[in-house]
Structures are given as structure tokens and as C-alpha cells.
């Protein structure tokens, strides 16, 4: 332990050292006798200062205060000869550790020990205090840091909140503006009734459009149930409740409803109801949009009716009708048209006709007369022509067609409609007529040629010297004049019969009498060819034109005579069979080839034309016979075996009171 002793009296100093040494502690004592020594000694380490109070010119208290000023806090014990108690207490108050009277130096070690102990306690206290102070300081910093952090957080949250509030204000402003625009928009809708309902179907919102369509003002209708907008019959059927239920379940419903105006008038409305949901997903009400569709429905019905009519016309048209657009694609074809060319309508529409269906024209080859090409040509005028279309099965179809362009207002061509007609049958008829005309022409010109040439020859006088040839020419002229007369007569008869202008004169007849009469008339001709006629019949009463029946029988007998070999017999009969009178004429001539059997009743269809002419026939006899049979509702048949003969059977109705016969006879009786 280092002790600094301040003592200017060496004796006192020695006494103190002695007292200290008694303590027995290892003490290093340094003595400072002057102020300067003291000041200097303070630089060295020191554990305790013992100072005399009364120093020459200064005091122990001065030394103490100096040390304090110098920041040295070590125990300081004053040793004094006579220090009053008051002064001693004052020193103690100032911080001196203790004081020891010089006459009681024995106390010095004790005082030293106590002072050091106090110092140790004081140091410990200071250390603890420092620790406490440090801890408090640290805690305070942490606390401040946390407070600062929290404060920053709060400030940030505050900023966010402010931003959010600003944003919300902006959004609310936009929303308000949007709602206002929407309200203006909704109120501006004039053709739709837009309104809202609560969950019970009461009207909560009513727009100008709703007022215009239903006639109710907002104050009249708000709060009322929306069934007030349904027509009474719809309300009776429970439609408002059903609609409300449906929109509740399905979230949306659309239907046409008979609706009501304020004035009581009813109109058809297209109504759309939609559910409105709150944030929790529950239904908070419904929106309703209704539109008056009366006119629209009326227009639709009119259009449908028109379309149906057009479709019916197209479907029922006998002619083929198809439409092409500007690019040649078939836009429609009617069933008749499709059927004519062998397609289903569905196969044609939507396809390019020319490429897909090869509707080409025969004859021109290059298709220049094709109705499809004509339809696609840029002409604005209708165009007609004849063409040969190719059917789906490859067969040809003769048609006449008319192409009519479809024009859009002015001169813009949208496509064309082609109407075509199957003329195959007509062509066949025309061909038949041509052939028949040719036949008639031939049949008329042949006798005329003979007559003309015979007379011409005679007129030259070149044959006067040849009376035999003259007579032959005259005979040719006469024979052919007769032939021409018969021919003209037969042609006219046939024509009149077939055109219905030749009226049968129906009378009660007896079959046996008619047969015998005809046989009698033909017996001379038969005899001339060495042929016999055997006629046998029982009396059968029936109604017919007797002259025409006899004409038929004579014709049949005449044919039989012509083709019967000499010395043969012709059998003629009349009998009643299954409600008919049947006349039969049977010969044993050369018969008719099977392939001719179906033709011999046609005009100019003799088995052998030249033979027939040689026999004086016109080629029209059997055609006339059939026509007469037809006029009597009868028929005529032939059975034949070549080389063995033929049997002609002429059937006539046996009833006397046949209505058709009476009918035929009536005009005659009237006249």
C-alpha cells in the first residue's frame, strides 16, 4: 500500500510513520513537506493520503481540495494537534475521510483502515452506480430505438392510411361520377324499361325508359309489386311469382310476357330478370330490363309468313329454280330443281355449281350456252336459252332456262336466279309429232305423186299412141285419188275422235244384227278374194253407236280378207262375256309378228306398209278402231300366231243404261 504523507514537521512525521508501521502492513510511505512536493507526488500511484492540518502557509484541507480538483479520489486523513470539533466536522462534510489527533496517533491505523474501507465501499458503490447507470442508459437506448421504430411504423401506417383515404376519396369521386353517368345513360334509354326490385319483387328503382314504356311515373310505381306490370291474364297464371322464383334459382331468366301499361293496354314484352347479390353472396334484389317487342313480333310473323309463302311457291313450283351468288355459288335450289338433276337440295347449296356439278351444255362444247355461265356473266338483262344439263347419275337433261340477274338497287349485280324446265318429254312429243308429220306427209304425197305424174304424162299427149299405157295412167290416177280420199277421211275421223269432237250416237243395238250387217257388207269383197265369212251370234242388247261399231267390224273383216289365203274362212262372232259384248274376227292369214303386236293399233304402223297399201289400206284403220272402242269405254285386243292367223277381239260394255252412254247420247237427244 502506498501512502503519501504531508508533514512539514519531521518529528511529527516520524511519529506518524511509526504509528503506521505498527499496523504491520507492508506500507510504502512517501513524505511531502511542501506544497510543490505534494503536487508532484500526486503523479505517482497512491492509496491513501495522511496530512497534517496546519502546514506552513497552507492547510491539509487545501491539499485535500487540491487533490479533489485534480480528480484524485483517495482516502484523505487529517492529523492535527488541536482541531476544534466544529472544524473537524466541517472537514468531514467537505469530504475528508477522517481526522486523528496527534496525541492519539494510535488511532491512525484504525482510521486508515476505516477510510480505506469506506473508500472501497464508495468505489463499489460508484461501480454499482455506474453499472446501474450504464444499464439504465442501455435500456433507455433500446427503449428509444423501439419507440423510434414503432413511431416510424405508425408514421408509415399513417401515411398509408392517408393515401388510402385519398385513394378512396378519388375512387368514390370516380364512382360518383360513373354512377351519375350511368344514371344519365340509363335514364337516357328510351326503348327499354329498366327498373330494380327488392327481394320480394317490389319496385325500388324506376327509369325514364320504364316510365315511357309502361306509362307509370316513379311516384306511382315505386314500392309496388312488379306483378303490377304484367297483363291480368299473366298474373292469373302466376307468371310474376314464377319468374321471380326462376331468377332466384337460375340468376337470370328471359321470356316474352304479356305486359301492362298504366292505361290498361297490353303489349308483348321481352323481359330479362337478373339477380343482384350483396357482398356476402346473398340475393339483395333483381334488375329488370323489358322491351316492347309487339312490332318486332308482328314483323317477324309477317316475314315468316312471307318466307313460308315463298318457300311454298318454290317448293311447289314445277320448274327448277336455283340461285347463284356473284361467285357462282348456289345459294338455294328448290326441290323440283334438285330432283330434276338428281341431287338433294342440301348437296347443291353452298357449292360452286359449275365445278361441283358439271352442269355443262352439250352441243356448244365450250359451255358458251350454259345457264350457269350465263348466270355468272355480268349482263344485267334476263337471258333465255336451251341447254343440256348433266344429272348426278350422268344422264342428260334437256332444259329450257331463263337467267334473271339479281340486282341491288342500281346496277350492282349480286347474282342470278335460274329457272329451268325439263323439256325432255316435250322434245319426245315434238319428235313424235315430227315423225308423224313426216309419215302423214309421206302418206299424202305418195298418192299425190302418182296422180300428179299420171296426169302430167297424159297431158303431154306422148302416150296417145299407146292406149294401154294411157289407161294404166288413168287407173293409177283414179286409184290414188280414191286412196287419197280415204286417207284424208280417215285422218280427219281419227283426229276428230281423238280430240273428242266426234260424238258417238248411242242407240240401243243388237250385237247379232250389227255383226250380220257388217258380214253382209264385206261378203262381196271376200268373195272376190275367194274367202268365206262365217258370222254367228245370239241376240245381245246393248247401247252403242251402231254405225261406228259396224265401221270397226268392217275394218276388222277387211283386214282379215286382205290377209286370208284364198279358199279360207273368216270366223266372226258376238257373245256376252263378263258384262261385255265381245265381237271376234278370226282369220287364218299370215299372222302378226310378236314385235308388231303392240304397234299395230298405232297410226301408220302396218305390219308391212307396202302390202297394206297394195290392199288399199290407209294405215289408220286399226287406230280408228281403237279410238272407237275408247269412245265406247271399250277396248280392242289382238292375239296372233305368225303363219296361223290372228284373232281380233272388240269389247263393248253390255249395259244398256250405262251412265257414260246416256251422257254421250244426251246432247244428241237435246238437239
Amino acid at each position, binding site marked *: 500500500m502506498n501512502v503519501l504523507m504531508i508533514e512539514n514537521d519531521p518529528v511529527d512525521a516520524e511519529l506518524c510513520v511509526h504509528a503506521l508501521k505498527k499496523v504491520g502492513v507492508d506500507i510504502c510511505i512517501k513524505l511531502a513537506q511542501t506544497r510543490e512536493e505534494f503536487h508532484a507526488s500526486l503523479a505517482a500511484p497512491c492509496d491513501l493520503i495522511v496530512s497534517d492540518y496546519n502546514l506552513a502557509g497552507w492547510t491539509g484541507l487545501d491539499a485535500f481540495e487540491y487533490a479533489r480538483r485534480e480528480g484524485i479520489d483517495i482516502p484523505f486523513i487529517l492529523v492535527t494537534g488541536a482541531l476544534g470539533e466544529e472544524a473537524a466536522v466541517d472537514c468531514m462534510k467537505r469530504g475528508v475521510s477522517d481526522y486523528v489527533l496527534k496525541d492519539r496517533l494510535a488511532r491512525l491505523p484504525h482510521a486508515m483502515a476505516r477510510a480505506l474501507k469506506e473508500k472501497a465501499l464508495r468505489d463499489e458503490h460508484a461501480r454499482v452506480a455506474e453499472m446501474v447507470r450504464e444499464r439504465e442508459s442501455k435500456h433507455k437506448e433500446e427503449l428509444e430505438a423501439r419507440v423510434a421504430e414503432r413511431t416510424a411504423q405508425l408514421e408509415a401506417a399513417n401515411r398509408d392510411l392517408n393515401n388510402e383515404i385519398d385513394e378512396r376519396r378519388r375512387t368514390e369521386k370516380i364512382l360518383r361520377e360513373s354512377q351519375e353517368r350511368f344514371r344519365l345513360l340509363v335514364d337516357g334509354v328510351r326503348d327499354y324499361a329498366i327498373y330494380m326490385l327488392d327481394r320480394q319483387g317490389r319496385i325500388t328503382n324506376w327509369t325514364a325508359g320504364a316510365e315511357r314504356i309502361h306509362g307509370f311515373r316513379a311516384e306511382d310505381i315505386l314500392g309496388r309489386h312488379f306483378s303490377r306490370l304484367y297483363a291480368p291474364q299473366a298474373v292469373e297464371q302466376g307468371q310474376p311469382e314464377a319468374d321471380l322464383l326462376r331468377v332466384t334459382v337460375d340468376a337470370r331468366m328471359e321470356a316474352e310476357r304479356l305486359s301492362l301499361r298504366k292505361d290498361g293496354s297490353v303489349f308483348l314484352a321481352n323481359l330479362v330478370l337478373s339477380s343482384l347479390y350483396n357482398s356476402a353472396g346473398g340475393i339483395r334484389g333483381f334488375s329488370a330490363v323489358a322491351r316492347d317487342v309487339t312490332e318486332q313480333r308482328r314483323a317477324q310473323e309477317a316475314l315468316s309468313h312471307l318466307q313460308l309463302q315463298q318457300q311454298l311457291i318454290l317448293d311447289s313450283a314445277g320448274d327448277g329454280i336455283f340461285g347463284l351468288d356473284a361467285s357462282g355459288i348456289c345459294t338455294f335450289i328448290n326441290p323440283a330443281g334438285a330432283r330434276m338433276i338428281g341431287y338433294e337440295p342440301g348437296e347443291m347449296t353452298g357449292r360452286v355449281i359449275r365445278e361441283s356439278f358439271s352442269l355443262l351444255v352439250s352441243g356448244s362444247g365450250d359451255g358458251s350456252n350454259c345457264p350457269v355461265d350465263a348466270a355468272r356473266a355480268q349482263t344485267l338483262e334476263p337471258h333465255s336459252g336451251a341447254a343440256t344439263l348433266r344429272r348426278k347419275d350422268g344422264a342428260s337433261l334437256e332444259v329450257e332456262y331463263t337467267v334473271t340477274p339479281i340486282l341491288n338497287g342500281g346496277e350492282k349485280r349480286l347474282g342470278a336466279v335460274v329457272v329451268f324446265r325439263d323439256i325432255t318429254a316435250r322434245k319426245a312429243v315434238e319428235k313424235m309429232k315430227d315423225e308423224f308429220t313426216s309419215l302423214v306427209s309421206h302418206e299424202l304425197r305418195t298418192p299425190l*305423186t302418182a296422180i300428179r305424174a299420171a296426169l302430167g304424162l297424159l297431158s303431154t299427149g306422148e302416150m296417145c299412141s299407146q292406149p294401154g299405157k294411157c289407161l294404166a295412167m288413168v287407173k293409177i290416177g283414179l286409184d290414188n285419188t280414191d286412196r287419197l280420199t280415204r286417207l284424208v277421211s280417215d285422218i280427219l275421223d281419227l283426229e276428230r275422235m281423238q280430240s273428242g269432237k266426234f260424238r258417238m250416237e248411242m242407240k240401243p243395238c243388237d250385237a247379232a244384227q250389227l255383226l250380220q250387217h257388217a258380214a253382209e257388207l264385206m261378203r262381196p269383197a271376200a268373195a272376190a278374194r275367194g274367202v268365206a265369212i262365217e258370222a254367228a251370234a245370239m241376240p245381245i242388247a246393248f247401247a252403242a253407236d251402231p254405225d261406228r261399231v259396224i265401221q270397226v267390224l268392217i275394218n276388222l273383216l277387211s283386214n282379215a280378207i286382205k290377209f286370208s289365203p284364198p279358199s279360207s274362212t273368216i270366223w266372226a262372232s258376238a257373245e256376252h262375256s263378263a258384262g261385255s259384248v265381245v265381237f271376234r274376227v278370226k282369220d287364218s292369214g299370215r299372222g302378226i309378228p310378236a314385235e308388231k303386236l303392240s304397234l299395230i293399233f298405232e297410226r301408220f304402223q302396218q305390219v308391212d306398209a307396202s302390202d297394206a297399201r297394195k290392199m288399199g289400206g290407209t294405215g289408220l284403220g286399226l287406230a280408228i278402231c281403237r279410238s272407237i272402242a275408247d269412245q265406247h269405254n271399250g277396248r280392242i285386243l289382238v292375239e296372233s300366231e305368225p303363219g296361223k292367223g290372228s284373232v281380233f277381239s272388240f269389247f263393248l260394255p253390255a249395259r244398256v243404261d250405262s251412265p257414260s252412254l246416256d251422257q254421250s247420247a244426251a246432247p244428241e237427244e237435246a238437239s
Partner: protein
Amino acid sequence: MQKTILLIDDEEAIVMVTQATLEILAGWKVLTASSGAEGIKAAAAHRPDAILLDVMMPEIDGLQTLTSLRNAAETATIPVIFLTAKVQAADIRRFCDLGARGVIAKPFDPLRLSDEIGAILGWAAHARQTAPREG
């Protein structure tokens, strides 16, 4: 030189008057046949200067007869004239396409018949040729 004509027609009266016309008025020799088949044989046998051929005949008609004549070497070059009542333009074209030299319509004028035949065949206008007379 006397011309020889073969007349093929199934109408007896036509054959008679035509034959008389050409023999008496033109002095030609006229052979006759009453059918196509008979005419083809006669043509091959007699090689006439020309053939007058009817069109509408039974069995083998005039057109088939002409084809047969054209197809047979011995008759292929004999000129054929149709004597027919079928005198429409289309018919005449068809006949000529088949090789007929011409068509004379029925009824014909007997006084002009030989001239018409001569004109068609390019025969020089002829004086009446002498022919054996009947009786």
C-alpha cells in the same frame, strides 16, 4: 348413149308413173325394184348410170340401201338421187351427208323430172333420147 336408171320404190303406182315418165319423156332405160334389197341386187347386176331411191320403205329403208350401195365396190360410185316426200332442209342435208348426189321431192313434175336428174348429175342438156316404144 341411152342412160339407164334404176328406180327403187315400194309404191307400185310411183314406180309405174316414174318409169313411164323417164322412158317416154326422156327416152331412158328404167329398171325397177320394189324394195331396198331388190334394188341393191339390181344395181350390182346392171350397174345403172344413176339410181332413183325412195326413202321410206319397209325393212331396208332408202338410207340403209344407200349405205349398202356405197359399201359395195361395184355400186359405190353409182350416183344416187333420193326421190322422196321427206324434203325438209335437215333431211336433205342428212341425205347428202350419207352420199346422195341430190334430192327430188315428191310429188314431182313429170315434164321436168329428167331435167332435174340431169342437172343434179351434171349431164349435158340432152335431146330426147330415142327409146324403144311400146306397141
